[in-house]
């Protein structure tokens, strides 16, 4: 029973770890431990990925991430980073509207380059 379950979880492992029970048991246990830890890490990783994407999208419009988020918080816009990153990828005009709102609320940066770096409408 248990052996079959171990081998089922050991699919795709390298070398003897997918075939021999003694080695497979160790590797499977380690894999389950990693998955426990990484279920918590995934939340952190995803958030930092969203922040990277928002940063990139906002810098196209001449605003950096910190000032952008500060402007949004000032305007009491409660969109979270997941949705903001999706907007920056798939809805460029809406994201530009948000950047404009934020820079009106909190003009932190100077905006030297507006024509060459923004998306052509």
């Amino acid at each position, binding site marked *: 029973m248990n052996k079959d379950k171990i081998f089922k979880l050991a699919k795709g492992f390298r070398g003897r770890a997918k075939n021999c029970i003694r080695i497979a048991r160790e590797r499977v*246990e380690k894999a*389950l*431990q990693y*998955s*426990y830890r990484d*279920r918590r890490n995934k939340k952190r990783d995803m958030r930092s990925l969203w922040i990277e994407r928002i940063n990139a999208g906002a810098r196209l419009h001449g605003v950096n991430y910190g000032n952008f988020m500060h402007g949004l918080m000032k*305007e*009491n*816009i*409660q*969109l*979270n980073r*997941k*949705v903001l990153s*999706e*907007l920056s990828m798939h*809805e460029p*005009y*809406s994201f530009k*509207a*948000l950047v404009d*709102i934020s820079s009106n609320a909190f003009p932190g940066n100077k905006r030297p380059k507006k024509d060459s770096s923004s998306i052509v409408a």
Partner: protein
Amino acid sequence: MASRRCLGALTRHLRARLFSASPLENPQTLSLRSLGFTIPQRTSSDLDICHRAFRRSISIRFGGVRRCSSRPTNPSDEEEDEDDESEEEEEENEERGVSSDGENGDVRASKCVVQRGKSEEEKVVEAAEIGYKVIGPLDSSENPFKLYEPFFAVVQIGSHQFKVSNGDSIFTERLKYCEVNDKLILNRVLMLGSRSQTVVGRPIVPDAAVHAIVEEHTLDATVIIFKKKRRKNYRRTKGHRQELTKLRITDIQGIDKSENVAAVA
């Protein structure tokens, strides 16, 4: 017990009379006429007052009966699928039955009802509002599914936000108080967008609604929770399946649709 089943039928009739017409306007007068008790003036809401009137009536009528038997065989006072709520109401009745005094019942009433009154219909709607949804009627052989329209909305359910469009399906945490094929209205809309317009709410857009239909109540795939301390002979395995609800988005309201279609065409 048979007494509890009769009690349930009686309270069902009384409750139907109380909450059938304009529950939020004149509950006090309705309860006064129907039950014939003088209710002491308190500063809490009308709902609590008529709730307490119910409970006091129950305790005074069946004051001496000790109800310590079989909680699981509690007949369903309420809607069919809320077992937890009927059990909690069970505990309320039991405490009221044990303390057969009017005064003690009153004091306990003020403590218990405010915390666990989840069984009334208004409370159900309030709990639904916390999860930002309003339950509409069930689907009745009409087809609410439309073709894809190029509009999106950002809607918040509980603590999760989703960017949805017409025809999408989303998985959320298990939404209580709604069954399969229920129409929902998600009224916490944070943003609306289309080809030529963006509506940003601070924080929500008023008068915007996203219609959805509950597609299914499912369980997530199993995750294995495995804990091990090496060299200490400690190893634990546990499986977990999270309860989810799958919603299908059917309509987005609150953004001008006619202009965009004309502009595109």
